[in-house]
Structure formats: structure tokens, C-alpha cells
């Protein structure tokens, strides 16, 4: 971006202008290669989802969405996200508050540990809960004796989803809250506001766009997770099938039109997520510019 601004605004001669960009032919060629690569890997798969979903007509498309098992899968996916999201939200805010506003020993180790689930393969994320709660697992016999089912049941799916979406909100908030000084909170406390009120009235407005950004990404991953959930679910139709697992079952039964119909819902979710993400990025950018501007006036 900086290059193009300099190209159009700097009072340079034609020779130096040519010196910091490429010949027209090279520019066109590079743009075509770049766009070709991105279209091949991003646009074509996306188009394929919708084309395959509508291949047998609109009737089949909607019929596969309102079918009993599909509806059960949609319900379970919504339920899972509705449990995982608030839990990771509370954790993310608590972790960011402790890490960004206070100094303590072992802080960078704690940040690394919070990021850990991103480094773990989804399959392993599911496996660890099978080893802990499964019949042969550490707590398995005790759970079986008390007739509590975690693996091949909804609690396992929720746990695996919480694990894979664990860092999203925390890692969005930590740098953001770190960058904002604690002076405003300090002032509110010294004027007699309670800690909770200070958080709601002072901290929250400053971090709201970052928070929303984290929630959006966390939600997309929670609803779309496949590997981890697949290990703990047991694939029981109508009971422990989330939407991505339902897609897999339909696909393996060669019911392609229905598989792609459910997949198209998930693809739409991905597109809405991208759109919201762009809007939030734009808003956060404006908030930052406004903050900079007001700081500039003050100094």
C-alpha cells in the first residue's frame, strides 16, 4: 500500500517512478498468476459446493435440509456452539485481564500454554478425551458405574469443540488489552467505581471490536470442526451427528446432492464469517485511528 501511495503522490520524475515498480507487462503477468492461483484454490472449490448442491434441483436441495437427521445435526451444531462459545468467552476475558493488566512470573509460559491447542492435530484433540473419559480411559470405569456418558455422546462433542476453539478469544484480547494502558481503569477505580463496573464501563467499550472478532472466528471453528468431533462422536445418526459429520455420512453413502446441500449451509456460514470479519476489522481500524487522533490533540 505504501508503495502505491508514494507512486501517485510523491513528486518524483518518471525515471524514479519506474525504478520502484515493475514494467507494465510484468505487473499484468504477476497479477494474472496471483489471481489464477487464488481463484483455483479459493473460488473454484466454493463454486463447486453450490453447483453440486443444486445439481438435482432446488426441490432436492431444500428437501435434504429439512430432513429429520439434517435438522438434528443442525440443532446439535447450534447447541455445541452455544455452550462452547460463552465458556471460551469468559475464559478469554479472564485470561486477558490477568495477563495484560498485571505482571507475574511465568507469564510467557502461560501465553504459550494457552496457544497450545492450535499446535495439536484435531484428531489428537479428540483422542485425549477418549483416553480420559472413554470406557478404557482413566475415568471410564467410574463414569460407567455412575451411568454418565461423555464419549460417543454430546458432552464429549462439546469438550472437543471447547478444546479446538480454546485460544481464539484469549489470543485476540491479550495483545489488544496490553496495548491499551491501564490509566483509564486506574482513574475509574480511584474515583470509587467497583472492579466489575470499571470493566463494564471502561474496559469493555475499548475492547469490543477485538472481542467480537474473536467470537466470530471462534464460532466459525466451533460449528465447522470435523476431526476432533469425529473421534469422540461415534457417528450416531440423529443423536451425536454435527453438521460436518452429517456431511461426511451422506457423502460416504454416495448421497452427493444432500451432502453438498448441508455443506452449502456451512459454506454460507464461512462467507458470512468472512464478511463480518471484514466489517469488524474496518470498525476496529477506525476506532484505532480515532484514538490516535484524540491522543494527537491532547499532546
Amino acid at each position, binding site marked *: *500500500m*505504501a*508503495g*502505491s501511495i508514494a507512486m501517485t503522490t510523491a513528486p518524483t520524475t518518471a525515471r*524514479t517512478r519506474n*525504478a*520502484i*515498480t*515493475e514494467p507494465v507487462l510484468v505487473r499484468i503477468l504477476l497479477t494474472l498468476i*496471483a489471481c489464477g*492461483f*487464488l481463484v483455483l484454490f*479459493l*473460488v*473454484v*472449490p*466454493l463454486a*463447486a*459446493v453450490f453447483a*453440486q448442491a443444486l445439481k438435482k434441483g432446488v426441490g432436492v436441495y431444500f428437501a435434504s435440509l429439512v430432513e429429520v437427521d439434517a435438522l438434528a445435526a443442525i440443532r446439535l451444531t447450534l447447541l455445541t456452539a452455544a455452550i462452547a462459545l460463552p465458556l471460551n468467552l469468559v*475464559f478469554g476475558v479472564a485470561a486477558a485481564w*490477568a495477563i495484560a*493488566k*498485571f*505482571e*507475574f*512470573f*511465568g507469564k510467557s509460559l502461560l501465553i*504459550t500454554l*494457552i496457544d497450545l491447542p492450535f*499446535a*495439536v*492435530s*484435531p*484428531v*489428537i484433540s479428540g*483422542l*485425549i478425551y477418549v*483416553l480420559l473419559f*472413554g470406557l478404557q480411559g482413566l475415568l471410564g470405569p467410574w463414569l460407567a458405574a455412575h451411568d454418565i456418558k461423555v464419549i460417543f455422546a454430546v458432552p464429549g462433542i462439546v469438550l472437543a469443540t*471447547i478444546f479446538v476453539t*480454546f485460544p481464539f478469544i484469549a489470543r485476540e484480547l491479550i495483545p489488544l488489552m496490553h496495548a491499551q494502558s*491501564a490509566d483509564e*481503569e*486506574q482513574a475509574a*477505580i480511584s474515583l470509587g467505581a467497583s*472492579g466489575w463496573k*470499571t470493566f463494564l464501563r471502561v474496559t469493555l467499550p475499548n475492547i469490543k471490536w477485538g472481542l467480537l472478532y474473536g467470537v466470530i472466528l471462534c464460532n*466459525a471453528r466451533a460449528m465447522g470442526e*470435523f*476431526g476432533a468431533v469425529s473421534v469422540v462422536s461415534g457417528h450416531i445418526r440423529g443423536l451425536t451427528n454435527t453438521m*460436518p459429520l452429517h456431511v461426511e455420512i451422506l*457423502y460416504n453413502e454416495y448421497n452427493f446432492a444432500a451432502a*453438498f446441500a448441508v*455443506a452449502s449451509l*456451512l459454506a454460507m*456460514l464461512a462467507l458470512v464469517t*468472512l*464478511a463480518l*470479519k471484514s466489517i469488524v476489522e474496518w470498525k476496529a481500524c477506525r476506532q484505532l485511528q480515532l484514538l490516535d487522533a484524540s491522543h494527537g490533540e491532547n499532546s
Partner: protein
Amino acid sequence: MFRRVRQKRALPGFGLTLGYTLVYLSLIVLLPLACLMLKSTSMTWGRFWSTVTDPRVVASYKLSFGASLAAAVINTVFGLLATWALVRYRFPGRKLIDALVDLPFTLPTAVAGIALTSIYAGNGWIGQYLETWEVKVAFAPLGVVVALTFIGLPFVVRTVQPILEDLDPEIEQAAASLGAARWQTVRRVILPELLPALLTGFALAFARALGEYGSVVFISGNMPMRTEITPLLIIVKLEQYDYAGAAAIAVVMLATSFGLLLVINVLQWWTSSRRAMAL
């Protein structure tokens, strides 16, 4: 261990938030991971070694490692080109394509898997043309590379983009005014500046590809010794109720991931210290 050395400011809530963070982190992440380590120690060293060096498992390491490496290299080369075009040139649809780069982060992997399979299968949009040249992508190792390229696509673009945007055009002008040809400026001045970010993006894409499961299982065809990736073998072991075997393979994968995490941290530190020096 987390003894409070010095409280920076007199804000409330330190004990509560840190305590909650530690409890939640231990319950969700640390205890289950420790349980995995414990399970793998329940086998003897000899059995552990024979499980993780079984020919079928070794074949999966080769495919996972090779395909991830190939995908990361493709993403580094084309990701750099794409970033260059997105940052430096103006063309219609640029903002839309820029936003779409994050698609692999938000599109569920299973959806990506079946979409790519339908495109590259023998009767698919692209597969039918490749068929005439006798190139097989779906249900072949090449398909694994395609899926992993999709999954890793955003990493290089998103790590290099901010560095390229912040690059001071004056250094390019300086190089040009000192008589450097354009390609010399790019090779000697710009590329060295981008190198730490480029390597970070490469390592992130590679690490993500090693663990990927959802998009690969559809397109690979999962043929033993030929197109099985390592995460799939964990599932295979689980389906045979061989929990210790699954844990053993998982420990090998985890060790590799944590090693890569260390490398990535060093690379990120290098990138940010370079950036701080430049500013």
C-alpha cells in the same frame, strides 16, 4: 510458580482471573494432554518403538511429511506472488480476493475436502482434463498436496502482507538511484526484508498441514501404504480398540508439533525484532 512478583497497578481481580485461567486451562488442556502421555507410557519401550516404526505408520509419516512440505513450498512461492499483487498493484476485485484469502480458516475442513474431491475426481471440473494427460489427483498422493495447499494458503499471505505494507519505499528509491536494476532491488533489498516473515508463514503452513485431517481424508482415498496420512492412522488404531497404539502415534506427532512450535516462536521473534529495528 506463578508467584506474584510485583503488581503493576492497583487494579482488582488479579487473583480471581488468574485463578480461573489456570483452573480452566488445566481442566481442558493440560490434564487431558498429560493423560495422553501417561497412556503411552503404559506400553513397554519395545512395543512403543515397534508401533511407531511399523511399515504402514512409516509410510504415513513419509506422505504426511512430504505432502505438507510440498504444500508449504507451493504456498510460499504463490503466497508471496499473491501478497505482492494484493499489496502493490490495483486491479478490479482486489478487495474481494483479499477478504477471500481467509476462506480456508472459516470453511469447515470437511466441506473443503468434498469440494476439492468433486473438482479433481475423474469426472470433475478439472479432473476430466487432467485425466486426458493421465494425471491423477483425487485418490492419489497429489490430492493430499492439493488439500494441504488449500488449508495452508492464508498463512504466508497474512504473515508477509503487513511487512510488505510497512516497507519504506525510500529504500527502494535509494537502491534505484544508486543504479540497481529493478530485479536487483527486489532480490537484494526487498526479499531479505521479507525473509523472516516468509519463513514464519512457511513454518505455520507446514505445521498446520502435518496435523490436518478433515480435508485430506476425502480426497486421498485412504489406501494403506499409499495414501494414508498419520492422523488417519490414529483413527484406524482407535477403531481397532488399540488405545495405547493410538496414543503412541499421537505422542510422536505431538513431539513433532511442539518442536515446530519452538521453531515458529524463534522465527516470530526474529520477524518482530526486525520490524522493531526498522521502525
